[in-house]
């Protein structure tokens, strides 16, 4: 693994999903770019999003997997989901079609992740108010019905971006503390970096399902 100094105690794996052009990469960039200002620059490149955040006094390293959103890759991108602790489902508030596809994204996420995976719905491009195509209330209702956390954000202005990522991490951390998330399960998407010995979690489930290809 990279980053030898263990300045964090957990690693959470996130995936960002959603149609092409909803601004997944921009959200990721907006969130991780701050690391250039505060953290040391020689960790992992921009392309692979990581950032260490502070949740409830714990340092948590977020590893964010950006995914390709094109319809034609849907069938093959399933292996992204494996072992994700959090899934950020993104739609574009100015394009209704991206909202309409949410249910199929949600189905995929539910099917391919474990039950404790936290799903967070993000309506991106909230800064383009005059082009709004999906009402806040409508999306909120969808989120409530499906038990998702929801926020409207803007990768451009940075509005609510931080909140979305941090809230997800808080929820996951809560799951860990409640014992709902089994740290020892491979698919949990959470690694505990042992500052104290004896709690290292490595894969348990051994015959690794060979990837879907």
């Amino acid at each position, binding site marked *: *693994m990279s980053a030898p100094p263990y300045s964090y105690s957990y690693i959470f794996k996130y995936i960002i999903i959603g149609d092409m052009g909803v601004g997944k*990469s921009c959200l990721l960039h907006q969130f991780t770019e701050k690391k250039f200002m505060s953290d040391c620059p020689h960790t992992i*490149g921009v*392309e692979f999003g990581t950032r260490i955040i502070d949740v409830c006094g714990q340092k948590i390293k977020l590893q964010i997997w950006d995914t390709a959103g094109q319809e034609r890759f849907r069938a093959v991108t399933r292996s992204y989901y*494996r072992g994700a602790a959090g899934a950020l489902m993104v739609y574009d508030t100015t394009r209704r079609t991206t909202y309409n596809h949410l249910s199929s994204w949600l189905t995929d996420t539910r099917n391919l992740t474990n039950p404790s995976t936290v799903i967070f719905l993000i309506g991106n491009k909230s800064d383009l108010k005059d082009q709004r195509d999906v009402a806040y209330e409508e999306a909120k209702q969808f989120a409530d019905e499906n038990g998702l956390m929801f926020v409207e954000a803007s990768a451009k202005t940075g509005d609510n971006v931080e909140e979305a990522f941090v809230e997800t991490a808080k929820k996951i951390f809560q799951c860990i503390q409640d014992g709902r998330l089994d740290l020892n399960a491979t698919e949990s998407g959470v690694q505990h970096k042992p500052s104290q010995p004896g709690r290292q979690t*490595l894969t348990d489930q051994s015959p690794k399902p060979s*990837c*879907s290809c």
Partner: protein
Amino acid sequence: MNVLKKASLRIEEADLKCNKLGCTYYGTPQCEGFCSKCYREHLQVKQLVNPTIHTAPAQSSQSSYKSLFSNFERKKQQQQQSQKNIKLLKFGSFRKNIEKTDDLHLDLMQAFSFSDSSNELLRLRETAQLIFCETDQNVETDTNKCVHKYLRKMYADVDAANKFKLSIDDLSMKTQNFYQAFSKHMDTNKIYADLRPEQKERILEYVEKLCMTLLHQVLFCPLFTNDEEMDLAIQKRIRQLNWVNASHLDCHIDEMNPSARDLAFIAMLELTNMDSIKTPPDKLSCIVKCCKSIFKLLQQTGGGPASADEFLPLLIFVVLKANPARLKSNIHYITRFCNAYRLMTGEDGYYFTNLCCAVSFIENLTAESLNMPADEFENYMNGDVVSTSTWESALVICENMQLMCEHLSMLANFNERHDKLFNEAEELKLQMLHFKEEVKQQVHDIIEKYPLEPKRNPRMCGENSISDVVHVTQTESSESSFLFNFSDKPSSSKNKTEDLISFSSPNKVCPPTPIPKHLQSNSSLCSLGGEFDLSDHSTDNSQTDDLISFTSNDFSIEHNDETVARRLENDEAETKKCENETAPTEPAVKVNSVPEYRGFSSQGSNIPSIPCDTGSTLLANVQSPHIKNSYFPLPYG
């Protein structure tokens, strides 16, 4: 260019050699991988065994590629057979009565404690030294013990798997269990208690690499799986899809841009390199390098942050164009035997997942996924239509472009160097001029600071001889000789000063001679005396003597003049009276009568020849100044 050259290295020489073991000639696909001699023998043997089968070499291009691969396969089988034979030989030759697994263990011991000359093992041993030099001796011993135990088991399991008693998944499971057990062992065992987490991680990685390097031969693309068929299938598939270009995949790659092309080449090269590496973590790092150069490419063309939406198509494109050897085998090998946590999270896992997606996309590629009509897709796949803008043709077109680009950059480089050289020369010139000025200035300063003291003139010794008048009246000849003196020793100013000191020191040493009273009385005269001393020093004696004789005369006249001036007022009336009388008789006065000569005093330097004796006579006649005064205006009047 380098990229292309490097890419060719991935075919090992051994693969090109004749199929017959021990033969050093090269084989050809036409002769089924044998050299011509061995092929003839091979045919003879075959015909003896089964005379009815006609064994003509494959003709069509497709079968030739198959034969190439089967050749590969045969070779591998032969290798494995020979390995077993070696092992059997070892069993036979010594330790006959020890059970088989122990012998394997011994083999392994030998493999990495002694010199198995393989580079991977040598490198691993180096890393091991680095890791274990910081730790207790027990750590290394214990780690090696664990590794041996695992390897021994693994060899037995592989044997079982070869007899189809175990599946590859069982082996994979056992390996993953071993990794996990070992890391738990490190956490619980007190031998490892003092280690930092990152040290443990390094040991774990080392163990993984060591085991996999040793087991690569039996676990990579093993005979008891269908990996090889899948390799063939994907290879064939990629060949069929060679018409797919960047625009089909909606990825924007600037094929005309040399740096973009280089990055694409690097990505392909890394991907093809993956096959030649033995351990899963290192294979993963190849994939990471490949993906990073793709990201660089994207950042170059896109300008903004690269997204997965653009990345995946480009990765697919790279896989299609690189067509890496034994792609599926490599992916399976990594999935099965790489420590699973590595694949779950982290950069390695992310890129590996992307590669899996790309391969899976290629396998399931349809007309729909390329957004083209089904019949067009079929035409392409059948080879009825040849794509006009494939990567390859673009490459051919661009080859000269690339050459030109290289030449242009070389020219630019030359230009730069030329300019630099010019500037430096210019600078050097300035420096030299500056240096010259500096030296001049220094010399000047030194002359000003340490003016030459009278040396030869005995009357002039003493401090009052140093005065401004000296350099004001310095003659040209004296100055130049001075300069010449210095240029003989052009070292440092200190030297020059010394020079000057030594120059003037004789003066100080020289015994003071009594100074005539009449000279002592006037300071201006003393300082003027320095002048002859200087010229005396620098020029030859004959000249100097003349000068002395001349100037001393002059001074005495001047001295006269001053004294005359003092008395002028007193005698003014008398002078006016005499004026008319003396003027017409001037030449006569000068030549004949010494007492009447005084009148020259003020312009003595303008008159080249004055008899030597006049000085003394003049001095003697100081008492009659009115005559001189009256005479003065005449030459100009």
